[in-house]
């Protein structure tokens, strides 16, 4: 009688022990699954930060683009203006010279055809 009671106690102790081990294993699997989810959240956070960084760079570049175009146009216009001023101030003497050259005609017969 005592023996059988002792054995049942042992058996139930064993069962309980197994139960606890099973539970521990279940918790372990659950924890592993949590790894996936937590990783996902962390990555999404990281991605969000990076994306924001990129977007602000994009915005900055857009602003720069407009500024650059304006500046380039302004500089070009100034240079064209200077060009025209140069032209106006330098053309005088040259114009007269070309006029003279066009009107100054010296007809000469071909050197091989000259008879002295």
């Amino acid at each position, binding site marked *: 009688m005592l023996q059988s009671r002792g054995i049942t106690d042992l058996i139930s*102790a064993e069962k309980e022990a197994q139960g606890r081990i099973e539970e521990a294993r279940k918790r372990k699997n659950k924890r592993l699954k949590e790894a996936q989810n937590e990783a996902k959240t962390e990555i999404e956070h990281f991605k969000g930060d990076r994306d924001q960084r990129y977007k602000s760079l994009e915005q900055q570049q857009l602003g720069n683009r407009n500024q650059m175009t304006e500046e380039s146009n302004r500089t070009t216009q100034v240079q064209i203006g200077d060009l025209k001023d140069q032209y106006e101030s330098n053309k005088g003497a040259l114009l007269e010279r070309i006029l003279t050259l066009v009107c100054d005609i010296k007809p000469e017969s071909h050197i091989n055809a000259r008879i002295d």
Partner: protein
Amino acid sequence: MGLSEADVTKQIQQMISFIQQEAAEKVEEIEAKAEEEFNIEKSRLVSQQRIKIIEYYDKKEKQIELQQKVQHSNLANASRLSILKARDECIEAFKEEIRKKLDFSKVDRSKYIIILSNLIIQGLYTLMEPIITIRCRQDDYGLVQRLIPDAIRRYKQTVKKDIEIHLDQKNFLSEKLTGGIELYAMNDKIKVSNTIEARLDIIFHQMLPEIRETLFGTNHNRKYYD
């Protein structure tokens, strides 16, 4: 007979304790392993994805940089081109200004007569043909007719050859020209264009380097001059 009741109970208790202890150890082991594997898996996943994300955004940021460089280059090119265009327009305007000043055939008659007769004789010297047809502006018809005999005389004197000149009565040069004549020989197969415009074209073209330098200054980027 064997063990007493108390001994048996004690032994069984011991065995139960042992079982419980072993189980507790096992559970601890499992839990430690769980944490370890959790951390390994999580950091593996995170770094794997991190690398991909970093690669992706680095590439996109490089594209932005590239776009900026392309735009910069495009702007520089466009600017250079507009400046060149402006220069070209100045030179064209310059030529036109000169051409307008060459339109003096009605204003300075004596000067025009001298030039016209020189153009005629120069044309004759160039062609050296016995039969010539001259084409002029309709307004100049009378004037050219009067200048032809003198031209023939000068030609005969220098070249010692006979020459026959016809003045085209049907075809005339455009009224838009500022002056001068065209000469034809060999049944209109050889043509000499001795208009004032033609002279301006040739002279202007030959002088272009000088014109550019005088109007706009020397080019400091130029390396070769021969």
